[in-house]
């Protein structure tokens, strides 16, 4: 018995020593908690490349779709937590600021070519820095527009977009395609409307205020709700799918667009690699919604892809992480993979992007159009806020009455104030 106990104790002791020694090599190691399942493969490739070139282990773990927050909470509590994680919006900065290293004047921050995508906390600490930027708007298949007897030049404002979309929808049976792909309201698709399209409501208010938001405003005005309604109505009423069938989803909007069944697809630059397989000349236009002067509107550009370095990791691990990041944005081979995966990277020595949607965003900016920044990143209690909006939109889709629209307005505007109050009051 004694022998056995001694053996068991020795085993436990040695196991715990192994566990303690796991993350503590003098060279330091990198553990990247990634939040986008679609980029996991490329990140694993980058990690293998770094190991091959520099001999340092990079562990990449990707949270399952929609569970990043849960995974991050669990992983950060472990004895070997992530050294590199994503802090991509105002809520996240609040939650994780105390676990993030101040990145001001660090080697990776010096590689940036813009401060536009960086996130600071209320004390001015640089909590996270953008590693790529994206854009969203309405993806268009120019061939189908032409086929329907129209031209891309007509898509310069809401009136033009409406005329084209309604004409295509009216003639869908003869054309063999419809205007908009499905606008499902299930969790895999609703964010296109409750997270992205709704940005126009916030962005124009922000612009009216004269300066970029630096923190979540306590209230919103109703000024641009009607503009949202213009565009939203156009999307759901001139689409392949009856608005009444959108609540539980089940339609593949991407496949509809790729197979030429729809001319318009509300989405973002991350869709480029998928869409360009079958629609190589696909392009992206802004959210035209009837705001005056919108002929000068550009795409919605911003990011939620921001790196934070764990302030509680060992110095060796922090250094290893920093070295890895600098290598990633400067090494031609690595940054090529990263740029092809993420779209475009705001770093001086990173490779150029080949994403045509981002090129379209640049073209709009070059033509003097205003960039609609991602004010949507300030949505308070984002999950609850969006869920209430989805529910209101479901009721509206089933019956497009004024009363149901009023509920959508309440969820969008008063819901913001209520969530803000619950969080900060």
């Amino acid at each position, binding site marked *: *018995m004694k022998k*056995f106990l001694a053996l068991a104790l020795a085993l436990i002791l040695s196991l715990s020593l192994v566990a303690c020694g796991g993350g503590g090599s003098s060279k330091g190691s990198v553990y990247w908690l990634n939040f986008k399942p679609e980029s996991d493969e490329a990140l694993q490739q980058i990690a293998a490349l770094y190991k091959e070139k520099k001999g340092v282990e990079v562990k990449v773990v990707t949270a399952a779709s929609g569970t990043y*927050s*849960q995974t991050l*909470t669990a992983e*950060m*509590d472990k004895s070997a937590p992530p050294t590199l994680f994503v802090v991509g919006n105002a*809520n*996240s900065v*609040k*939650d*994780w600021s*105390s*676990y993030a290293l101040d990145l001001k004047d660090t080697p990776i921050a010096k590689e940036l070519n813009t401060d536009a995508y960086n996130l600071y906390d209320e004390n001015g600490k640089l909590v996270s820095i953008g590693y790529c930027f994206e854009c969203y708007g309405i993806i268009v298949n120019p061939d189908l527009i032409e086929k329907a007897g129209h031209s891309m030049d007509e898509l310069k404002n809401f009136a033009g977009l409406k005329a084209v979309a309604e004409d295509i929808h009216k003639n869908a049976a003869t054309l063999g395609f419809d205007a908009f792909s499905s606008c499902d309201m299930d*969790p895999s698709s609703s964010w296109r409307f409750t997270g992205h399209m709704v940005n126009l409501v916030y962005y124009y208010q922000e612009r009216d205020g004269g300066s970029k938001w630096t923190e979540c405003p306590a209230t919103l005005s109703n000024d641009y709700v009607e503009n949202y309604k213009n565009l939203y109505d156009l999307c759901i009423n001139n689409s392949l799918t009856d608005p*009444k*069938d959108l*609540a*539980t989803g*089940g339609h593949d909007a991407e496949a509809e667009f790729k197979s030429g069944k729809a001319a318009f697809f509300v989405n973002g630059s991350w869709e480029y690699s998928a869409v360009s397989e079958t629609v190589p000349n696909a392009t992206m236009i802004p959210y035209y919604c009837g705001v005056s002067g919108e002929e000068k509107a550009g795409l919605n550009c911003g990011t939620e892809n921001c790196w934070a370095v764990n302030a509680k990791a060992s110095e060796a691990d922090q250094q290893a992480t920093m070295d890895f990041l600098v290598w990633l944005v400067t090494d031609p081979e690595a940054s090529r993979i990263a740029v092809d995966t993420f779209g475009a990277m705001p770093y001086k020595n990173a490779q150029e992007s080949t994403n045509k949607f981002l090129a379209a965003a640049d073209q709009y900016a070059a033509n003097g159009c205003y960039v609609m920044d991602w004010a949507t990143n300030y949505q308070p*209690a*984002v*999950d*609850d806020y969006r*869920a*209430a909006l*989805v*529910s*209101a939109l*479901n*009721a509206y889709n*089933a019956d497009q009455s004024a009363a149901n629209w009023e*509920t959508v307005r*309440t*969820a969008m*505007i*008063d*819901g*913001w*104030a*209520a*969530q803000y109050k*619950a*969080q900060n009051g």
Partner: protein
Amino acid sequence: MSKKPTGGNSLRRQMRKWSPLFLAAVVAAFAIGFVWPFVQGIYLSFCKFRLIRDAELIGFGNYLTALQDEGFRKAFWYTAGFAIVSLVLINVLAFAVAYALTQGIRGSNLYRTVFFMPNLIGGIVLGYIWSMIFDGILHRYGTSIVENSTWGFWGLVILVCWQQIGYMMIIYIAGLQAVPEDMLEAAKIDGANKWQTLFKVTIPNVMPSITICTFLGLTNGFKLFDQNLALTGGMPIITMADGTSIKTTEMLALNIYSTFYNSKSTYPGVAQAKAVLFFLLVAGLGLAQLAYTRKREVQQ
């Protein structure tokens, strides 16, 4: 070489000697997997934390916030209503099926297997499958399971009935098979009709099964999470005039889960406090119900 142990005494000695070793594994698993997280959970309900290791004691504040939360109170009543309805339906139907399948009809074993099978499918998968079934039907009437809270409620009831009736049926079949034949025969000789035999002989004899099944039904009803998350996720949400919103089909466990991942910094603690209250409620109800039904069991 030592002498081979012979006789019962030696065997008992050996068992006494080695039993702690075998017990230790179970005790350790129980302590690591249950006791420690449970104690830590209670401690955390008095703390403000984002990560467990940085918990900071703040007293009873979390409990106050939890009790003042209208969503939590609403979820409680909703859960209670659901638990009662599903408890009654599951048990009545499971008993009826078990009774029918112990009457010696052809293919009883096949039926038992078929009825039991839904219980083998996970709650999330079931939720998604049933949401497709319900929407396939509700679509004809221009609505959806996530648009109508009444359908949401009954959808959930139908789902858990479908999942749990087979399981409870097995317990009832075991109970029904244990009813002494001589009692049934005596009832028959005494002139009792089928209903009288059922209510005066059979049911009192299967009280232990009823106890187990009501206990399971009640606690399962209160603890339901995956099915709720996958079928409605709390939808539809009513937006009040002041912008606040109420999830009309959110049950307690889902409410706790969403509270934990809400981004307000004190909310993980509040969710933990809700979880402790939830435990007290389920444990209290379960024990009260056990004590109540045990009194009605027939000692054979």
